[in-house]
């Protein structure tokens, strides 16, 4: 699974930051999205159906959804109070929060009629009997007061207290009246606490129902957030749990937004995986890393019950997803970047031994060592995943890896660019100029195709200083 740094780098965090949630319960689910494992196919399908229903509903009845969202917004986190019902007497503020929650349920429950029946695991029910306990006068007002109705004694103390207050107002605060007032205040507090203890005792019976409503609200909020996100980005619900692993026309909102700021746009990528190693080769700066990260993002999203940013997607159930890229943090381990990479690879291999349903993404694996041994290491990795029959995608520059690939993809890069024109514009625009000539498309090619040689052309296009580039030309 990914660490925080990796979740950020593949754009997962970006998506989580863009999902709009209305309740603390939904927010909590989004903080640690659940990864639906191999044996949770049905649960994942349920979640997908919920999102599809809600997407549909947003289209059919936008006003109704807006109204539902408005009603979810005031929901606060009352779990601590609800859980404490078994342990102690709640304060007036805590009972106020519970009453507000129960009042809100009265408003939300009717809005769930119709749509609620179509949603799995989301059942929001009004709890009028529990509400009556917190609102014995039946006013349904949004405030909380320990009513006189609940205790004759409380009513009597309060009447006496009121008389003393009135006398103090008229005659001034004599010591005798102050003493009397203090005593009555203490008596009232005592009786108030007793009444609240009774109330909490009766509320205990509704504790499980309240918690179940809370879970439903969280699930609804999260699913609605996912549905609205999917509509905003034109995302599709992937077909999960089959044998095929193919995602067409993938995008990545984080990179799209970064490119948009530069006036460029994201070129969608399509990949089909088979069991074994898929190898991606291609020009430097051609978008191999981006393609790998975009695949990582969309696979993770699919496994967490989200719609994916793609035109079409079929993804098998997976136990886990791993990525090894330069974003890994080794600073703490004291290992060199090569050492850290091998250690992480080892951890991953041991952790997934015997598991076929994992996806491993290697971005420029073994880049830190010499090309001769590096190529051998990556070839070994490719063979290993072929043997294991798990899903692997390996982006590399090294020679001789692609021929081991089950499938070979190549970034077109500068292959179709007019290098003459490109060279004539050398140094005029650096990376931005290069982007104009670069074809970021990913194409399936024969495993016998070797990685393209355009590093030198790219150095020229970047306008690196002549003293250096002239020497390169002599060398090559």
């Amino acid at each position, binding site marked *: 699974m990914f660490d925080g740094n990796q979740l950020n780098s593949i754009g997962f965090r970006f998506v989580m930051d863009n999902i709009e949630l209305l309740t603390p319960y939904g927010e909590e689910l989004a903080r640690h999205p659940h990864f639906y494992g191999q044996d949770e196919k049905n649960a994942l399908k349920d979640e997908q159906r919920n999102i599809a229903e809600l997407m549909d509903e947003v289209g059919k009845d936008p006003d109704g959804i807006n109204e539902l969202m408005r009603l979810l917004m005031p929901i*606060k986190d009352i779990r601590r109070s609800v859980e404490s019902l078994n342990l102690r007497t709640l304060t*007036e503020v805590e*009972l106020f*929060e519970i009453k507000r929650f129960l009042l809100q349920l009265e408003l939300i429950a009717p809005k769930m009629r119709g749509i609620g029946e179509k949603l799995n695991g989301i059942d929001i029910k009004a709890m009028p009997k529990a509400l009556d306990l917190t609102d014995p006068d039946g006013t349904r007002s949004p*405030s909380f007061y320990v009513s006189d109705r609940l205790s004759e004694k409380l009513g009597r103390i309060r009447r006496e207290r009121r008389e003393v207050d009135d006398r103090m107002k008229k005659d001034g605060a004599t010591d005798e009246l102050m003493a009397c007032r*203090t005593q009555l205040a203490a008596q009232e507090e005592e009786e108030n606490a007793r009444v609240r203890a009774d109330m909490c005792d009766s509320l205990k019976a509704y504790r499980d129902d309240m918690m179940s409503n809370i879970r439903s609200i969280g699930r609804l909020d999260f699913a609605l957030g996912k549905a609205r996100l999917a509509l905003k980005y034109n995302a599709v619900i992937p077909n999960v749990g089959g044998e095929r692993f193919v995602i067409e026309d993938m995008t990545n909102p984080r990179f799209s937004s970064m490119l948009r700021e530069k006036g460029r746009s994201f070129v969608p990528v399509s990949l089909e995986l088979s069991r074994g190693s898929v190898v991606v080769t291609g020009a430097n700066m051609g978008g191999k890393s981006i393609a790998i990260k975009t695949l990582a993002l969309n696979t993770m999203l699919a496994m967490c019950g989200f719609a994916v940013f793609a035109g079409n997607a079929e993804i098998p159930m997976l136990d886990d997803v791993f990525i090894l890229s330069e974003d890994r943090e080794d600073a703490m381990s004291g290992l060199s970047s090569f050492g850290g990479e091998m250690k992480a690879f080892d951890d991953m291999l041991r952790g997934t031994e015997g598991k076929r349903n994992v996806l491993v993404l290697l971005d420029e694996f073994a880049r830190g060592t010499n090309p001769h041994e590096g190529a051998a290491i990556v070839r070994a990795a490719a063979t290993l995943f072929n043997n294991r029959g798990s899903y692997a995608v390996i982006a590399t520059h090294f020679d001789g890896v692609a021929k081991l690939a089950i499938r070979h993809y190549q970034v077109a890069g500068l292959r179709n660019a007019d290098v003459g024109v490109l060279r004539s514009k050398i140094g005029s625009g650096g990376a931005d100029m290069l982007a104009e000539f670069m074809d970021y498309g990913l194409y399936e090619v024969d495993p016998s195709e070797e990685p393209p040689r355009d590093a030198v052309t790219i150095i020229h296009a970047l306008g690196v200083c002549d003293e250096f580039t002239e020497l390169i030309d002599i060398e090559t």
Partner: protein
Amino acid sequence: MIYEYMNGIKTLSVIGMCKNAGKTTVLNVLIEECEKHDEILGLTSIGRDGERSDLVTNTKKPEIFVGRGTVIATAEGLLKQGDISMEILSSTGQSTPMGEIIIVRAMSAGYVQLGGASITEHQQLIRDELLGFGCDRVFIDGAISRKSLGTPALCDGVILSSGASYDPNIAVTVGDTAYFARLFSLPVYSGEASVMRYTAVRDGELTGANELNELIPVLREGVKVLIVRGAVTDSTASALRNIGKLLKNTLIVAEDASRLLLKPVMFEKLLGFTRGVSVLKGTRLAAVTVNPFSAYGTHYNKYEFKERVEEALRMAEVDVPVMDVKYV
């Protein structure tokens, strides 16, 4: 007696120049007076106050005593320290070290502990919520700080509480009291300003800049008004003084009195090399209260203190009543 000065003030902040200035006494009298006039009051504070015993100096402090019907915004953790019977009206979602700020209605008379928000925007929301619960008037227990004068953005009237606890030297206390009173009484400039740090106004034409230097060409031609957004500190004043020759006929305008964080001597200098100082948003200073009792033992003579403050205010041309806290 103090009630008569409350006319037209919907939100009042009582600001103490130091701890034990008698702020709470003033609030209690105000509360009592307003209740006699059947007003529904809203109460809150900036930061924590109303404590039984002052945490810093450990002197016994009077607490705030409210009547039935008063609406109070305070931190949840301070609710149980009071003894009113209460109806919970709202949980504001704004948190303080003492818990979330809760709005309650007093269903009996009794003591309350006030603790409020420390961010101006939050204070404004709470004030608005209190007014929304039908309060005729909102009192804010003001911040205690030598540097800041609370937030005129929040209220339309201020009572300044001064006391012997401010400084053992009566001359210092009197001087600073008059200075703060004077800041609250600055004239209001009613003209447009840009959103920039500095706005020069010349023949009705605005030129905005975030750096003073950028404005020098305009200032050279002579401007009637220079508006300064944000804090006006001693270093701001020094920067202005460096180009003092250009500002001889210029009125300096701050956003409001709380933005003038100047030592009195720097304020005097600023007045000396400019045409004067005004504010964009004024606050009505309703009264100054004085407390001759010091928490540190260096009490003042009560007649002398009151008379000297009155005299200093007269000299500063600030026309507000001065009252001893015992007789407000």
